[in-house]
């Protein structure tokens, strides 16, 4: 035959708990009541956090902040499918992912408040600092999965990226290596419809982003990203495959960035309010709450209690954030390398001298002790 089919690929979309409340029990993951409660609680907490962070930014108590609203599922749920020794590589928007793994919110605030001490993950977790250059963590995630494979562990690496990031060449190279070496890499695309002002349609001409995975021999699936159960299922299956040596998975989770890109952005310049309103109806938290109420995992009192506790918790974290000493500028010199080279030692001494000069002229206040390792 002169024209033969040499490859065929199907890309599927998984939805378990639809926006309209339909629930496909046949596909639902088997999750304990505790797990379901944990999922709901964490997402509630992160939503409260997000609201609070935006207020802090407006009041000048926080720097530029990338909002989460609408992406509670895509941020938190994958993190809840993992073991501490699995690697997570969230995006800059991924405060929810870190929180779901146990990082205290005060540190998220600290980082976005412009203080490097805000990078502070639970000691025993394999949580990696995100990359502000979009997508530069993808090849690192591949290397992590590769390293774990070589060390003989079953740990996987989950790499969150945006629809925008999926256009970076890093995606291609990371997936190529991961495919060839059958690495436990889960490339989790939070397709929230926008990359700042660029719509998904302008980002790429393919029908789905998930289908890109086929180009690397990866398992590929699209899921409803506002459906906690679908995301849990897709990620858990990908993790199982990863642990099993069956190679990488691309998951495209369909969600929506309900807020501006960051507090420095004004989305009304480039997208319609109707679109936003449409997506409000698909809210991930509302949907999950209704389901838990319906299935009697929760009742109204419990909902209220979780909400209230979340607010108290976040308020406490904000207090803790604001109670930190100002950072000593000398901190910047700590932990740059195992042993600082001579010119950096000289430079730190110069800054020390400058700080003393400025203090003697009352231009800056007393400073707390410098933190971190030096030289």
């Amino acid at each position, binding site marked *: 035959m002169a024209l033969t089919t040499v490859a065929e690929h199907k890309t599927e979309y998984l939805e378990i708990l639809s926006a309209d409340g339909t629930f496909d029990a046949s596909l639902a993951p088997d999750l304990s009541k505790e797990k379901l409660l944990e999922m709901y609680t964490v997402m509630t907490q992160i939503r409260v956090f997000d609201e609070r962070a935006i207020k802090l930014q407006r009041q000048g108590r926080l*720097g*530029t902040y990338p909002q989460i609203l609408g992406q509670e599922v895509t941020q938190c749920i994958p993190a809840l499918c993992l073991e501490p020794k699995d690697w997570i590589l969230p995006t*800059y928007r991924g405060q929810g992912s870190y929180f779901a793994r146990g990082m205290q919110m005060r540190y998220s605030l600290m*980082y*976005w*408040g*412009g*203080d*490097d001490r*805000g990078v502070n993950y639970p000691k025993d977790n394999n949580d990696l600092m995100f990359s*502000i*250059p*979009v*997508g530069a963590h993808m090849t690192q995630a591949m290397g992590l999965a590769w390293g774990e494979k070589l060390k003989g562990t079953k740990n996987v690496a989950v790499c969150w990226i*945006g629809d*925008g*990031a999926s*256009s*970076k*060449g890093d995606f291609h190279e990371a997936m190529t290596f991961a495919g060839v070496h059958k690495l436990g890499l889960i490339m989790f695309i939070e397709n929230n419809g926008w*990359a*700042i*002002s*660029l719509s998904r349609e*302008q*980002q*790429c001409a393919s029908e789905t982003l998930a289908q890109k995975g086929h180009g690397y021999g990866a398992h590929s699936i699209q899921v409803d990203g506002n459906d906690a159960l679908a995301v849990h299922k897709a990620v858990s299956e990908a993790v199982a495959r990863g642990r099993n040596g069956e190679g990488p998975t691309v998951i495209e989770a369909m969600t929506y960035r309900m807020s501006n890109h960051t507090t*420095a*952005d004004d989305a009304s*310049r*480039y997208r319609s309010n109707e679109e936003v309103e449409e997506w409000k109806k698909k809210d991930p938290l509302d949907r999950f709450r209704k389901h838990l109420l319906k299935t009697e995992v929760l009742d109204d009192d419990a909902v209220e209690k979780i909400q209230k506790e979340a607010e108290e918790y976040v308020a406490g974290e904000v207090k803790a954030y604001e109670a930190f000493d*100002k*950072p000593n*500028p000398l*901190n*910047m*010199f700590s932990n*740059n390398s195992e042993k600082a*080279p001579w*010119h*950096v030692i000289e*430079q*730190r001494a110069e*800054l020390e001298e*400058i*700080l003393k*000069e*400025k203090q003697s002229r009352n231009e800056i206040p007393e400073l707390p002790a410098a933190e971190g390792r030096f030289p």
Partner: protein
Amino acid sequence: MKNFLQGINEGLRQAMEADDKVILLGEDIGKNGGVFRVTDGLQKQFGDQRVFDTPLAELGIAGAAVGMALTGLRPVAEIQFSGFSPPILDQVICHFGRMRNRTGGRNTLPLVVRLPQGGLIHAPEHHSEAPEAYFCHTPGIKVVMPSTPEDAKGLMIAAIEDPDPVIYFEPKRLYRLIKGEIPEEKYSTPLGKCRIAREGTDCTVITWGAMVHTSLKAAAELEKEGVSIEIIDLRTLTPLDIDGVLASVKKTGRAVVAHEAPNTGSWAAEVSSLIHERAFDVLKAPVQRVGSWDIRQPLFKTEHFYIPDAHRVVRGVNKTLSRDKAAA
């Protein structure tokens, strides 16, 4: 009075009006007008076939600019922050400055890359870098960085009209901070020519971008101490205006190079070396460099202790002066 950002915008607009081969491309530059609004109104005026919002892929942007330039267009590409410019270095190093020579003069690259540069805008990590040295070391390209609204416009027009690749750094903290008169008509500021930002007699401070303004503050402080510094705003980093620099140094006998990048291996090293090589006999003291520390740039709470402020420029100047005293 217009601000620095308007200078760039006007330069782009007038270049686009004058030549419909001028095309803009970059992330969020169209409908959104750029995250800093530098390109505000341009897609509206020129349409979405002259001003393109691209996918999130810097290498793609650079390669697209190369290809477009080869077809005779004059692309002006924006990389949203210069901290995200490393992915374009492959095109910059391997192709931008080599295309003309390796094709025997057949194919040329009349393109511009705009790179918002520098810190102190309270931005997140990686949004405050000063990577000019990576570009300046690369043969075959020009690197410019204005510090006034007037030059912002004139250098933009000159960059677009230049037949070879030009890297146009925009010291982003000047966008709304610095205001000045901008001639209405289309004009170009010559590439390769520095500007005396302030006349003085005791020491020359060679600088560029936002550090010009930091140096002006230092000059005011120093004046109180009876020290008069001359400030050279390089405007074009490479090719450097060697005559302009040397003329000033020969007058003052002393020089400080002030800039925002980590100091080691920076463009200040080149400027310092050139001055020593070519004005050794008139130098009363070694040229001092005042740059950022050779460590990762910290987040914004302590960033102003990383990037040199006026006080550090003053210290640099005083160091050249004290050296002299010691020798005398």
